[in-house]
């Protein structure tokens, strides 16, 4: 019988950025580690390891989650979107484009998670008020921007989407 210290690896099926992936991992491994170490998707970052900073945010079946708090076994069968999967055919997503032009990314470490949180916000609130933006991004910490230009970027993405 395997001891607790040596858990058995299992195969976990995931759809990552539209591609079916199968990984042999410990089911209690953090989704963040599986993304970074097994799938080599290093866009999700570890800032705190306890769900405070949001820099490991990914979309799991459309919901924004801190991947450092999700045991990979819990994501079995789920569809994941990471920052690497956001730009379609080398064209930036409107939110990415807006972060670029509004200086919403400074050091860039919170950016992948912040952009995914903004995408999630706009999916549920296509025309968010400033308070909804502030609330919607409050799980993602940024130490560089003071958030002003991130709010501007979200507003610009709304305008771009409306224009389409």
């Amino acid at each position, binding site marked *: 019988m395997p001891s607790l210290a040596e858990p058995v690896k299992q195969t976990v099926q995931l759809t990552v950025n539209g591609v079916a992936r199968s990984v042999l991992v410990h089911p209690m491994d953090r989704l963040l580690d599986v993304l970074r170490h097994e799938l080599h998707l*290093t866009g999700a970052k570890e800032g705190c390891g306890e769900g405070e900073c949001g820099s490991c945010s990914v979309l799991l079946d459309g919901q924004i989650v801190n991947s450092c708090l999700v045991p990979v076994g819990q994501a079995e069968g789920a569809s994941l979107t990471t920052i690497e999967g956001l730009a379609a055919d080398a064209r930036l997503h409107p939110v990415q484009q807006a972060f670029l032009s509004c200086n919403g990314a400074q050091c860039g470490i919170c950016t992948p998670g912040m952009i995914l949180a903004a995408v999630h916000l706009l999916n549920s609130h296509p025309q968010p008020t400033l308070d909804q933006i502030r609330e919607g991004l409050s799980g993602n910490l940024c130490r560089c921007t003071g958030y002003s230009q991130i709010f501007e970027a979200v507003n610009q993405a709304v305008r771009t989407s409306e224009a389409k």
Partner: protein
Amino acid sequence: MVLAQLQCFVPERNDLNQHRVIGSAVPRKEGFDKVTGRARYADDITLPGMLYGATVRSKIPRGKIRQINFGPGVDWNDYVVVTAKDIPGRNCIALISDDQPCLADGFTNHPEEPILLVAHPDRRQLSKAVEAVEVICDPLQAVFSMEESERQTEVIWGTDNLLKTFLIEKGSLEGIWEKAAHIVEGEYFTGAQEQLYIENNGMIATYDVAAGVTVWGSLQCPYYVHKALMALFALPEDKVRVVQMETGGAFGGKEEYPSMIAGHAALLAMKAKRPVKVVYDRMEDMAATTKRHPSRTRHRTAVDASGKILGGEIEITMDGGAYATLSSVVLSRGTIHAGGPYCWPNVTIRSKAVATNSPPHGAFRGFGAPQTLFAMERHMDRIAEAVGISPVEVRKRNFLKPGMTTTTEQVIREDIDLERLLDHALELAQYQEKKRHFPAQCRSGKMKKGMGIAAFLHGAGFTGSGERYLSSVVGIEALPDGLIRVLVSSAEFGQGTNTVLCQIAAETLNLPYEWVTIAQPDTSIVPNSGPTVASRTAMIVGKLVHSAALGFKQTLLASGKLVENYKPEAFRQACSDHIKKHGELRSFSQYEAPSGIFWDDQKYRGEAYAAFAWAVYVAEVSVDLTTYSVTVDDFVALQEIGKVLHPRLAEGQIAGGVAQAIGFALYEKVVWQNGRMLNNQMTNYIMPTSADVPPIRVFFEELGNVHGAYGAKGIGELPMDGPAPAIINAITDALGVPFHFIPLLPEDIYAGLAAHSLAPVK
């Protein structure tokens, strides 16, 4: 290779807006990689055969290390272990006084001090090994507060616990106390603050007998790490290579400590004969690395009946922690900024950094100035109250004006009009109108509103003779396809180094911005353009890029391959042709101190900085008398920073600094116990979220600056200085009760009100 002559470019004031690339909001050079997740930070890199390293740290604040035991339950044959005995060179982090060991040897002087290193191929096997190492110590009496250190209850550093002292004397205090209509005294405290870059520290190292040491990491100052590794490994400069990876925030927090981590990773790599990665998790990063120096500043000021300062004494103490590291320079900047933007006809400033048994405090945006400017700007409000004039009036009566001198007797040569700057800020904040309406609004409610102001300055570049000692060098080179690359060791960590330095080169060479790139900071490729600190990059390094670009252009023009008023295509062709013929085309430029600059290191007198940025910030706050929490409702940040090279980046720098300073003022409290940080998690050390920040309204005035590229001044640290005093002044205005320390938490406000019988006693 061409060494460019330094040419003096003096922008006329009306020239400031006549540029093509400068002043425009071009895209951030590395922006695409950042928004797509392609940017590579240290922890994103894995080398073949790489091990993971971890650090065994002191659990006690001070003691003699008697024995180290490797406990049971761990197969130590699987681990690489490094102790101080494995260090081939000097066991120190070479910086200024070289007093900090890389690994504690025989003694430990603070909690979390590195003692021993372990490495293993599986990072999950590290924590059990770290826990299994037993360090047996004979504890020694330790010192935990500035007061204990000053009283020398125990001497823990040198002969007197004094890491550094400064004395500035201007005029004479004789007779001023007798002449004074008011003598105003005050004592002000600021707490430690964690930089809290979202990317934790990380470093990867390789070692090879022939090639020496190479490290790739998260860092601000490639040549600081280079210097430290040369000393640690006793290697010549060509056997040490330092490469800066994308760096996820720094704020000063990656100025000196990365040298420590680089040393650790490299020592493990040398012993393991394999690459080693050392990446801290958040708890280790917060507990072990540097923070802003806690401070105490005392003012005693003689003021005449109109509120004009006759003179005064300022006494500053900063807690440096267990080793000297950067305390001397942090204290220096704090001391020079202590008088604020005011005219002191007579002043004596005494300052000291004292040792305590906590991890060394270090560089953090503002570098000593936020501490002493907090005191100065709170004290100005106190002077106003004592004299019976408004906070606005007391500042106007004491502002420095062109021709006057600072506390170090530096003559203000800039055409700065602080009264006008203040009036403009008040207007933008609707200060007078709001002040009139607040008392009526607050009369019956549970919400009190107030307005506070702070006027301040921040010197750009290294202090005094510092830039002369640095003697920075930058290069411009042509690539084989005729495009241009900037060569500097100045690092990008969000502020916009890559972008503004490329803008300067593109503007000077009359090229499209897109044709200019910047080399990754790698000491085997780039010259030493100095550390990325002290608000010096845009101004000092930018000016050198400008000079190097002029030299580059001159070389092409002199060679006859290019004629004046060229088109970019002709330039590109000329570069390409030159490279085909000569192999390379490069131009370097080295810093030379401007003439007529005088600084006396002994007396601390003279031109402390080539230029100051000037600012007036206005905060509007609400204090909830049910929860005692403070909301910043509006924030106006108006500054004169010379030419704004890139309006979006500049605005982003200011807004980010203001938010960080709101944390400094209202949220970010480091809880200490016996020299150790207790709340070393993001769960219990609270920084502002998107829901906490006010509208931060950023405004610029542009006077220009003869010492900076295209008239630029430093900007990075400035916004850290003003928000805390502006906010605490506003809280004091709202409640009518003075507060003299930060961070000011709701419980502190409650206690302050209770002490004045203005809150229910529970």
